[in-house]
C-alpha cells in the first residue's frame, strides 16, 4: 500500500487538474451553441445537385466557397441568382465554387427555375429542411462565405448586389 501511495496521489491530483481545468475553462470561454458563426467551421453537408452528383462541403477544402440558401418563393433570392452566375463566370478559373442550396422545394419547381435562367453553378437539393436547420437559418436568402480552410469568413443575410458578392469573394481568394 505504502509503495503505491505516491503514484495514486499523482494520478488522482492529475485527474482533478484535468477535469477541473476543463470545467473551469468551459466557464471562461464563450459557450458554443452549435450554430455557425464567423470564424467557426462551416457545418459539413452532403447533397445532390440537379444532375444527381454528390457534393460534400469538406471536399472543397482549399477552395473559396460561397454557400447560398435560396428559394423560388423569395424575391431577393430570385434577383441575386443571376449575380451569382456572373461571379461564377468571372472567378470559375480560380480556386472558387458556388454551392446554391435550394430550400427544400419540389424538383420540378427548381429545375424549371434553373433552366429558365440558364444557371450553370451547382444547385444543391436539401430535403425536409435538414441542412437549412443545421445552418440555423431564419431568413432568406442567407449566404455564407467559406475560407479555403473551411472556416466562415462572413455571413450575409438578405439579397446581395454584384458588388457585395465581389468584394467578399476577393477577400476569400486572398486568404
Amino acid at each position, binding site marked *: 500500500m505504502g509503495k503505491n501511495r505516491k503514484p495514486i496521489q499523482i494520478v488522482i491530483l492529475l485527474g482533478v487538474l484535468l477535469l477541473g481545468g476543463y470545467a473551469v475553462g468551459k466557464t471562461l470561454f464563450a459557450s458554443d451553441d452549435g450554430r455557425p458563426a464567423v470564424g467557426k467551421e462551416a457545418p459539413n453537408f452532403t447533397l445532390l445537385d440537379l444532375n*444527381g452528383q454528390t457534393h460534400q462541403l469538406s471536399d472543397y477544402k482549399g477552395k473559396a466557397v460561397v454557400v447560398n440558401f435560396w428559394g423560388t418563393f423569395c424575391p431577393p433570392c430570385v434577383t441575386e441568382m443571376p449575380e451569382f452566375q456572373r461571379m461564377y463566370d468571372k472567378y470559375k478559373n480560380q480556386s472558387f465554387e458556388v454551392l446554391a442550396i435550394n430550400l427544400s422545394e419540389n424538383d420540378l419547381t427548381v429545375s424549371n427555375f434553373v433552366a429558365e435562367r440558364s444557371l450553370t453553378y451547382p444547385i444543391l437539393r436539401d430535403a425536409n429542411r435538414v441542412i437549412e436547420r443545421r445552418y440555423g437559418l431564419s431568413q432568406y436568402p442567407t449566404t455564407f462565405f467559406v475560407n479555403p480552410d473551411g472556416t466562415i469568413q462572413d455571413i450575409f443575410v438578405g439579397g446581395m448586389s454584384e458588388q457585395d458578392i465581389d468584394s467578399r469573394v476577393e477577400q476569400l481568394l486572398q486568404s
Partner: protein
Amino acid sequence: MFQNTKCECGHQNPPDTLLCESCGKPLVESDEPLEMRYDGVARRSQKRNPNPLDRVWSFFSSVRIAVIIIIITLIGAALGTIYPQGNNAAYYKETYGWSGELYHKLGLSSMYDSWWFVCLLVMIGTSLVICSLDRVLPLYRALSKQQIRKHLQFITRQKTSYVGTIEGDAEQWVQSFGNHLKRRRYKVHIDGTALLAEKNRFSRWGPYINHIGLIILLLALLARTIPHWTEENTIAVRDGETVQVTGTDYYVKNDKFTVEYYNEAELPDMLKQQERPKLYETKAILYECVSSCGEPGIEPELKEVKQYDITVNHPMSYKGVKLYQIGYDDEPLLQSVRPIIEDVKTGQQYGPFDLPMKNPKTSFEVGPYSLELKANYMEFALNEEGSPVTKSRDPKAPAFIFIVKGPGLDENGEPYMYFPLEKDKERFSQDKINQAIASKIQIRVDGMDNVKFSSYTSYLLIRVDRALPFVWVGLGICMLGLLMGAYWHHRRIWLRIDEGTLSLGAHTNKNHFGMRSETAWALEQMGITVESDKLDNGGYNS
C-alpha cells in the same frame, strides 16, 4: 522530532495513531471514553516532513476544509437565488434598481456558470475523493484484521463497558456467551477466554458508497457541458408528416394531432365566446434510422421504436431523448388530391389520379388523356410583371400547369391550369385562364374523400440529455450509501476473562442506547442482571 510509536505489544504504529493497530491500547493518556473514529488509525495523509504534493493532498483530506468549502458553496448558491439568473444588465437595473445593477456587476446574475462557482464544485469533488480515500483504506485495513484479544484499557474505556466476576470455566462461559450473541446475528470470534462479536460491518462503507454516488453525479453534471450531450431544439411536424429529430438519428411521425376545446359552460364569463384549447395531443411514432441515414437523394430506412401520445407535461421519452408538446398551429394545408378528368361534351369521367403536393410525378396517363406537369406553385400569385410566382413553399394556394393531350385536343397538347382548392379556382378565375380548353375538359376533385388535408402543425421541443442516466445512477448509488450508513449500525463487543474477572466493552458507530440494551440482554442470558444505563461509561453521544 522523533516520536516512539511502538506499542508495548510490539506493533509499530504510524505517527498520529490513537489506538494501537494491533492490541488496541490507547496511545494517548486520558480517562475519557476512547475516540473510536476510524478505529483510532492514522489518516493516510498524516505524515512527517510533507512535500508540496503531500501538502495539497492533506489540504483536501481535511474534513474541516471540506466543510468550509461546502459552506462557501452554499452561501454562493443562496446568493444566486436572490434575483432571477441569466438576464442582461438592463433587465436588472430596470427591474431592481441599484441593487439589481450591483447584483449584475458582481457577476451574480450568471453565477452558477461562473468560474469561481465551478471551481468550488471541483474542490468539493476533489475533497470527496481524497477525504474518502484517506479514511476508507486505513479503516478497511483496521477492520479486516482485528485482534480478538484487546488491551484491557481498550475494553474498559469503551463507551459501553462492564467489569464483573464470573464463576466456573472461563472458556465455557465465553462459548455460551458467544452462542447467545449469534442469535442476535453477531459474527463471533473466540480466542480462548477472549471474544470479539461483530455485526453489520458493511454499514461502515455506507458513507463512502454515498460519496461515490456524489462523484458520479458531479461528473455527470460536468458531462452535460460536452457538445451534443445536451441539446434543445424545436421542430414543427405536420399531421401525417415524418420529420428528423434534430441532433439525433431518430425520426418522429405526427400520426394524428387532436385538439379539444373548452365548451362554453366550462369557461368563466370573461373568456366566453373564445376558443380555448383544453387538451392537445400528438399521436407520435418514433423511428430510428437503420440505414441510408443522411445520404442525399435516398430515403432513409426507418424502424419503429416507440409509440406515444404526447401531451403537455407528458413527453415521449426514449434513450435520453425527450419530445415535449409545446404548441400547435391550426392553419390547414393541402397534402394531396385525387382529381378526375371530365370530358365536358360527353360527361364521361376518367381517373382519379394521385396528385401529392410534395414532389408529384411529372406525367400521368388518365383514360384517353395524357398529362404532362409543366410547373407547379405552392402559394400561387402574380408578381408585378404579371408572371406567376410562388409566395411560399407551403401548399397554401397550390396551382399546377399541365400540358394535356387527348381526344378533341391539339396534337401538341394544350395547357391547362389547375387549382385544387375551390377558393383559389374562383379567386384566380381558373376557367378564364384556361379559355378554350375549359369547355372541352375539366380537371376537378369529386367529393371531399379525394382531398387530404393536414389540419394542424404540432410543435415539439426536443431535449437531448445524454447525461441524465448517469445522474440517476449517481443518485441511486448515493441513496444506497445513505441507507446503508443510516439504517444499519455497526456493533462490536469485546470481552476477556482474566482470572475470573470479566471485562466487557462494546462499541457502535451510532445509537449507543441500543448497544447498551443489547449488551444488557446478552449478560442477562448469562445470569448477570445489570441495568443497561449502568453500562454507560459517560462521555458524549449516548
